[in-house]
């Protein structure tokens, strides 16, 4: 009991702040600034109260203790079954409403369309979210029901991509309507189900029931009753210390039902068992409830969001970001959400001793992600649509009471309109924009032609002038390595990602016009990620399956002999990194022939360019671009050359993905080093930037007219002087 009390005292939100980190919450920080005598006084008071048991009562969070229930509604301490968050939390919260109103759960599953019907997407995409929209970074294609061949099935999607999914939605019902673990197994080629499907063909692949065997290449059935499904994991975002690694491990292992339970492993309520997890009954109350103080239930912090979205760091030690694709936003945009000074970073950043700015000024001033990406029915932040209001109404006082909100908090979070995100587009613009918190006019008095600048430039253009972490530059799936990995290049780092001594340079994003919610295009900073991959042709084009790529290119853990022969240009028997690119027609042909040999029809290389908007990583005002000649000069920032790729597989120039709202204003060219570069054009962006843009014809004509005038004047003057001298001598 004493241990339990001590634990409770340790995890009280008001004094501990962020999950898994140092005391960084606002109250914690404020307390840290109190004078010493006050701390001593409070400590003494707590010590006195602890003896009476009052301390526990006073320091217990608002949330009551929670009886953890399994899917059947039994207390898990008794049933020993996996925790069902949907059942457990339903005692007080409308979990059905919550799961129904969460694009984090549905990830586009509820917005799907038939493949090839939406011109804003690839012809094989069938949803705007990760459940149906193909991504060249994660590559494997989540096969829609009825498709010709199975690639990524629902179960494998959870295993490989569930780490970025909150659970619920397709992780419960897959492509159908009924929970996956309540259906009868179906064979491949059998009618898919009675459920709604994305494809008209009901007799093809059955991704809900089957899974592709990586060894044999055959599909086999997946036992959902054994694996269970992944309910929306409330613990992941609401526990003080969610055990995300344990959760991910369960997902990868295919123990889906245990994922939520594993998330509790940092609370001391559960511990690993031979099969699944077991509950530590001593950690529960006498009534079999999980003490609220152990759970530390709370509103999500930025670190909760960072578990899926990217590097968030609130610690005191020098930050050492994980530079891999698991830190999605960091990997795609070079962004880090942390109040720490960049100079304090553990990374070997060039000139970092002078970079005394924080990674993100919003983190420094203790904002959380939820401050801008708030729940849409949170009464504190409720922002009714102006379109629905009478014109005379300037404030809508009617909003939910806190108790009503807590009963049914909408998990559709306010969002902007990012170029890379398509899911829940009906919610675009619900987020608080920069100008809804900041009065730009008040602090830009120094800026001439303010309105013009604001009309043409996004705030981020100047306030996210640079990303200080490396980001993905290109990914090449046309020639995988013997381990089956693509050739991936990052920008903003001089050396390998895995080398801690590699110098991090960061990068300046390219400024491209992006259609804003007001319908106006503004220059916005982007990282461009180029990708190359093989596409199978025919009536239903699909990215060539990784399985087929491996089958075609590899022979065990080596390249197939015919591939090795063409790649090994220096004939040393090895494929050097510089040789690992389809940079000649002979190499392209060799791979194509191998793909055809394993049954891929009409394989051809396709390339695309995905813009990732930089909206975070905002610096303090003094780090923003404010010199006129940054843009108003020949070598303008706006026309700065942007390296797109250092290699161009198959010589295929990438095309901008559709529907991003970004205009590729500029020209993609191959420079003398055979690198693909983008030369942005302000004129193509519909801009005329004084000092940068010129009318060459006007200048030529004008200079010609001016020069001829000057020449005429000089000639005429010279003739006058000569004539005057002649006359002078004749008069003499």
């Amino acid at each position, binding site marked *: 009991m004493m241990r339990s009390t001590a634990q409770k005292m340790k995890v009280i939100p008001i004094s501990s702040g962020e999950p898994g980190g140092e005391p960084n919450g606002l109250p914690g920080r404020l307390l840290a600034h109190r004078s010493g005598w006050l701390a001593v006084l409070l400590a003494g008071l707590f010590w006195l109260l602890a003896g009476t048991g009052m301390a526990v009562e006073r320091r217990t969070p608002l949330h009551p203790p929670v009886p953890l229930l399994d899917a059947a509604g039994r207390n898990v301490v008794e049933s020993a079954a996996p925790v069902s968050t949907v059942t457990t939390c339903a005692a007080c919260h409308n979990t059905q409403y919550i799961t129904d109103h969460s694009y984090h759960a549905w990830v586009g599953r509820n917005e799907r369309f038939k493949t090839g019907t939406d011109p804003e997407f690839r012809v094989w995409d069938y949803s705007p979210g990760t459940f149906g929209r193909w991504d060249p970074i994660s590559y494997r294609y989540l096969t829609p029901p009825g498709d010709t061949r199975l690639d990524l099935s629902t179960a494998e999607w959870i295993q490989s991509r569930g780490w970025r999914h909150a659970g619920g939605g397709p992780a419960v019902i897959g492509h159908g309507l009924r929970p996956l673990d309540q259906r009868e197994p179906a064979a491949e080629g059998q009618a898919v189900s009675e459920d709604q499907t994305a494809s008209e063909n009901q007799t093809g692949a059955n991704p809900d029931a089957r899974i592709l065997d990586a060894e044999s290449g055959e599909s086999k059935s997946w036992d959902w009753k054994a694996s269970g499904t992944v309910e929306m994991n409330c613990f992941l975002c609401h526990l003080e210390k969610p055990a995300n690694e344990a959760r991910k491990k369960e997902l990868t292992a295919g123990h889906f039902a245990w994922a939520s339970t594993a998330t509790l492993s940092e609370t001391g309520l559960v511990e690993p068992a031979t099969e699944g997890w077991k509950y530590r009954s001593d950690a529960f109350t006498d009534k079999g409830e999980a003490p609220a103080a152990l759970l530390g239930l709370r509103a999500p912090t930025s670190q909760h969001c960072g578990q899926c979205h990217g590097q968030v760091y609130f610690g005191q030690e020098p930050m050492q970001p994980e530079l891999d694709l698991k830190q999605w936003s960091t990997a795609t945009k070079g962004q880090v959400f942390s109040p720490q000074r960049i100079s304090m970073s553990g990374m070997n950043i060039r000139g970092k001793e002078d970079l005394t700015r924080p990674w993100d000024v919003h983190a420094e001033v203790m904002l959380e992600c939820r401050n801008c990406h708030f729940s849409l029915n949170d009464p504190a932040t409720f922002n009714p649509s102006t379109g629905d209001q009478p014109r005379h109404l300037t404030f809508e006082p009617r909003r939910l009471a806190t108790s009503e909100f807590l009963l049914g908090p909408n998990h559709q979070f306010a969002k902007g309109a990012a170029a890379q995100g398509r899911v829940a587009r009906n919610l675009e613009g619900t987020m608080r924009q920069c100008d809804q918190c900041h009065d730009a006019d008040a602090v830009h008095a120094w800026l*001439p*032609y*303010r*309105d*013009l600048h604001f*009309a043409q430039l996004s705030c981020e253009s100047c306030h996210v002038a640079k990303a200080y972490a490396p980001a993905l530059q290109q990914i090449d799936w046309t020639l995988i390595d013997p381990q089956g990995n693509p050739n991936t290049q990052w920008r903003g780092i001089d050396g390998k990602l895995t080398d801690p001594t590699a110098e991090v340079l960061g990068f300046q994003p390219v400024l491209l016009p992006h259609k804003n919610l007001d319908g106006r295009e503004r220059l916005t900073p982007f990282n461009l990620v180029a990708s190359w991959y093989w596409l199978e042709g025919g009536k239903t084009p699909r990215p060539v399956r990784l399985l087929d790529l491996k089958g075609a290119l590899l022979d065990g853990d080596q390249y197939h002999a015919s591939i090795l022969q063409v790649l090994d240009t220096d004939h040393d028997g090895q494929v050097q990194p510089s040789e690992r690119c389809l940079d000649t027609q002979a190499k392209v042909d060799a791979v194509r022939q191998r793909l055809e040999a394993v049954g891929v029809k009409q394989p051809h290389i396709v390339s695309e360019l995905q813009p990732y908007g930089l909206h975070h990583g905002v610096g303090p005002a003094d780090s923003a671009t404010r010199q*006129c*000649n940054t843009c*108003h*000069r*020949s*070598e303008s920032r706006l026309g700065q050359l942007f390296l797109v790729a250092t290699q161009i597989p198959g010589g295929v120039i990438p095309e901008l993905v559709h529907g991003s709202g970004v205009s590729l204003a500029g020209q993609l060219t191959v420079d003398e080093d055979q690198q693909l570069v983008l030369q942005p054009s302000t*004129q193509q962006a*519909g*801009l*005329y930037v*004084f*000092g940068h*843009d*010129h*009318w060459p014809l*006007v*200048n030529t*004509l*004008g*200079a010609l*007219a*001016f020069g001829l*005038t*000057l020449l*005429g*004047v000089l000639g*005429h*003057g010279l*003739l*006058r002087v000569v*004539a*005057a001298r002649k*006359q002078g001598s004749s008069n003499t």
Partner: protein
Amino acid sequence: MKYVRMQLYSLYERIWHWVQALAILLLILTGLCIHDPDRFLVFSFQTAVTVHNVLGFIVLGNAIFGMFYYLSTGTIRQYLPQPRGYLVLAVRQVMYYTGGIFRNEPHPLEKSAEHRLNPLQQATYLGILNVLLPIQVLTGILMWSGQKWPEAVLSVGGVQTLSMIHGLCAWLFAGFVIAHVYLTTTGHTPWTNLKAMIFGYEDVPAKHAASTPIETTD
């Protein structure tokens, strides 16, 4: 030879002229700074823009005052070519610049306070003051006003079009300045016309004096 001193330019006309001259020169200079800061940046870009805008309004204000003056005093008539005999006089003027001036022939124009512009000057000023200057002022104002009335700017093709016209006119103005300065040297002496625009009067050979002199000298 006897010379007579003739009053050609009033004090206001001289102030008007020099204000315009200085403003236009500085406009060309700051315009170059804005147009190509890498090569011509004398001031900071922001200073160049601010000075350019202020000078533009000075030119505009001066032009309006000038128009009022020329209209109210009737001096405007000097700038209006008389159709009768204009062509003959213009040809004569061209012949003078292309031949007579080298033979030290007398200037075909008998200058007076009421008639001080030759036909070529009349045509040039008509173009400068009625076409070039208004276009330049209008395009300049529209570019300046892009902040306040972006729709107006868009309605005429946006800043791109405006800057093209403005730039072309600037080149023509620069050319005009060169020609104008040179032609001031084509008086009785190279400095006669310049002095006249500074002091207001010009010493004209007595036989050429077309109006009442203010003073006669030997």
